[in-house]
């Protein structure tokens, strides 16, 4: 009976000591860049009497993403994306789209605009180390119903070894 109890305890404790040292833990992601946009009277669709343009799009390579620390070209991963608002307006909807493959391993998916929500969603996937994956950002929902203020959200990219 004591033997069975010890076995049971080992089963419970083993993951605590060993799973943090898995071979997948070294993969890392770096997102470089930011997007700050000023919206003023020059963004009215047709001057006085008209509303603001609804949609704003960044330059093609606004954000650059590097994936490193993989176990080689066949080490597959995926990148999930979500946002955490600091002072955001619920009428505003941020989107991301991958606009280049970067250099190094392989990358697939993410070449259509994906809305960024508060919940992680898969953005794109790939394998091996890759540098310079370019991302374009878009925001929709602007209107004169949004009061003057600075609205900000943080976009989080999570690389998951798969």
């Amino acid at each position, binding site marked *: 009976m004591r033997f069975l109890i010890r*076995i049971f305890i080992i089963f419970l404790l*083993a993951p605590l000591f060993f799973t943090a040292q*898995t071979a*997948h833990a070294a993969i890392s992601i770096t*997102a470089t860049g930011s997007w700050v946009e000023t919206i003023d009277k020059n963004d009215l669709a047709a001057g006085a009497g008209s509303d603001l343009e609804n949609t704003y799009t960044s330059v093609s390579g606004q954000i650059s993403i590097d994936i490193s620390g993989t176990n080689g070209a066949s080490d597959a991963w995926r990148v999930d994306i979500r946002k955490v608002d600091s002072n955001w307006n619920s009428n505003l909807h941020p989107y991301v789209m991958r606009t280049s493959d970067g250099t190094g391993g392989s990358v697939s998916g993410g070449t259509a605009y994906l809305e960024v929500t508060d919940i992680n969603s898969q953005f794109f996937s790939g394998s091996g180390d890759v540098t310079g994956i370019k991302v374009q950002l878009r925001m929709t929902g602007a209107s*004169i119903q949004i009061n003057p203020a600075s609205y900000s959200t943080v976009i989080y990219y999570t690389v998951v070894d798969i």
Partner: protein
Amino acid sequence: MKTLKFLLLGALLALFSTGPVLGGDVSSHVMSFDFQQINEISVTGTPNLNISSAVAGQEPSEVTDSSSTCAITTNCANKKITASIDVAVPAYVTLKVNVAAPSGSGTSQGDVTLTTSASDVVTGINNVADSNPTITYKLSATVQAGVLSTDTRTVTFTLSD
């Protein structure tokens, strides 16, 4: 010896428990939009008012021109439109303006006599874009004004707090 067996068993468990990592590395960037105050107003039209008739026994007939419109955009709250003229009208002559409130926002003050001081013509305007509120001018005079030659006035509309 028993302890050694348990440690070996633990090591074996660890080997088989190396599945996908529970989390992943995270990086982030900021996305920020600075919505500045927008308060734009413009007017169109060149109204022409000419008093030229009267009903016998009464003052000259008031004339009206509703050919002008204003366009307004604001993303702010509690704004108002004021109006003024550059030079006062002659004695015994009255020039009034009536600006319709933008759709869904604000209150027109009705017929407002224009002077060289700014007068409220629409108040309580909140977050609106409307390109079509009508501006109506009314010109009236009493017989004491006499016969006056054609003259012009510039009306200034201001969107303000």
